[in-house]
Structures are given as structure tokens and as C-alpha cells.
């Protein structure tokens, strides 16, 4: 059970978060069909750091990108995504 630092709420238990997908798997709405399927159906899946999208589902419900090492679980960066918000 990891601990993530939510850009909005601070350090919170992983139990409050749900993993969505990696950033390399985001299919943008305007992608060409072939690119979209390539994006949807392949992953870098590195044995190392990757950028993952998590949602603080049971917290502030915001989405974020977390750079995490899949072997050590070390988190090197977290950034908020989503609509601009007041501080």
C-alpha cells in the first residue's frame, strides 16, 4: 500500500486512489484511428519509471500523473491534471 502525494490534498494512502492507465496510453479524441488503436493497445510497460495516471477517487476526485518506479515503487514526481482551479 503506497502513499501518494496528491497535488491538492497532500500525502494520502493509496487506498484512496484508483489507477487509470499510463500517459502513453491516453487516446486523444482527435487521434487518427490507426494511431488511436496503437496507443490503446500497446504499452511501454518499462521495468523502471513510467508516468501513470491515477485518480484520487475517494478523496478530491482529481486526476494526476505520477512518475513511479515499478520495481522500487519510488515516486519521483506528481503533477496535477485537469481544469484550472483556484489555489
Amino acid at each position: 500500500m503506497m502513499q501518494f502525494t496528491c497535488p491538492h490534498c497532500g500525502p494520502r494512502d493509496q487506498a484512496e486512489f484508483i489507477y487509470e492507465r499510463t500517459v502513453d496510453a491516453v487516446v486523444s479524441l482527435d487521434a487518427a484511428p490507426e494511431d488511436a488503436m496503437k496507443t490503446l493497445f500497446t504499452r511501454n510497460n518499462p521495468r523502471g519509471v513510467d508516468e501513470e495516471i491515477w485518480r484520487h477517487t475517494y478523496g478530491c476526485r482529481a486526476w494526476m500523473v505520477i512518475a513511479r518506479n515499478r520495481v522500487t515503487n519510488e515516486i519521483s514526481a506528481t503533477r496535477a491534471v485537469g481544469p484550472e482551479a483556484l489555489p
Partner: protein
Amino acid sequence: MTDVTITVLPAAPLHALEIWSNAAPVAKRFKEAAGFALPAIGCSDGNDALCLIRYEPTVWLVEGDVSALPGILADDGALTAIGGSVVRVQLSGKGWRTLLMEGGVFDAESPNFASGCSAVTIIDHVNVRLHVVDDDICHAYVPLSYSEAMIHFWKTAALSLTL
């Protein structure tokens, strides 16, 4: 036995206020009209007539009279009624912090989680919004469908809190 009492508060009109654009001007308009600022995330502000608790980056939970808000929001946000989906539970007495640690993953025992603070977390599989009213009272906003289970859990846990 420990010092915590679990009380269901009567249903109240609650709204979700969301701002999608021009947040700073909206905040300015709000402060001018309401007399207090839109609270930061993890905080609440307000008075007996109108209280806002911010649980999300762009959404505030509003308790009280919302009649002035649509005018303030104009085309930069919306107000949506959500009161039916929530049961408000009051946890009173010194033991509320310990009670919230039962089945919990949020640090409700932290001295930083003080009066006027808010947080959303998961307790015994239930998504609960918390609002510290004062050192002896915490309000929990529990999803209606899970409220029966949550209250039962709290009442059972309260019996063995000091063991």
C-alpha cells in the same frame, strides 16, 4: 466505551458548486457578495446562513441558502443539488478522532486536522467527507446508500475504541 456520540442530522439542502472558467473573477465576486472568500481545498468557510466546504479542486459543497450563487457564477460555473445523496452524521465527543481511525487510512488524529478543516477519505470501504466543526465535533457526509452500514460500523467500533 469511549467518549463519542454518533447522531444522524436532519436532511438539509446541499449543493455542489463548480467553477469551470474565470475562477479568479468568480472568487472576487463571491467574496464581495458573501463577505468571505471561497475556501481553499481542505478547508471550509462561512456562517450560519451559508457555509462552503471545499473537497475538490473545482467543486465546493454548499450548505445553506444558495439563492445568490447563480448570479455570482454567471456563465462560469453551475450549482447542482446533491442533498438527497448524503446523510449527515455528527460525531461528537473527544473520541471522534480515534473513531475515524477505525477502518480508516486518513490521519484524523493529526493536530493539523483542526477546526474548519475538511477531507475526503475512505473508511471501511465507504467514501466519506469529513468536516471538523470544532475539537469536539466532526461532521461526516456519508453516501445515502451506505449510511446504514457506516453508522452500524461506527456504533460497533465505538464500543471497543479504548481497548
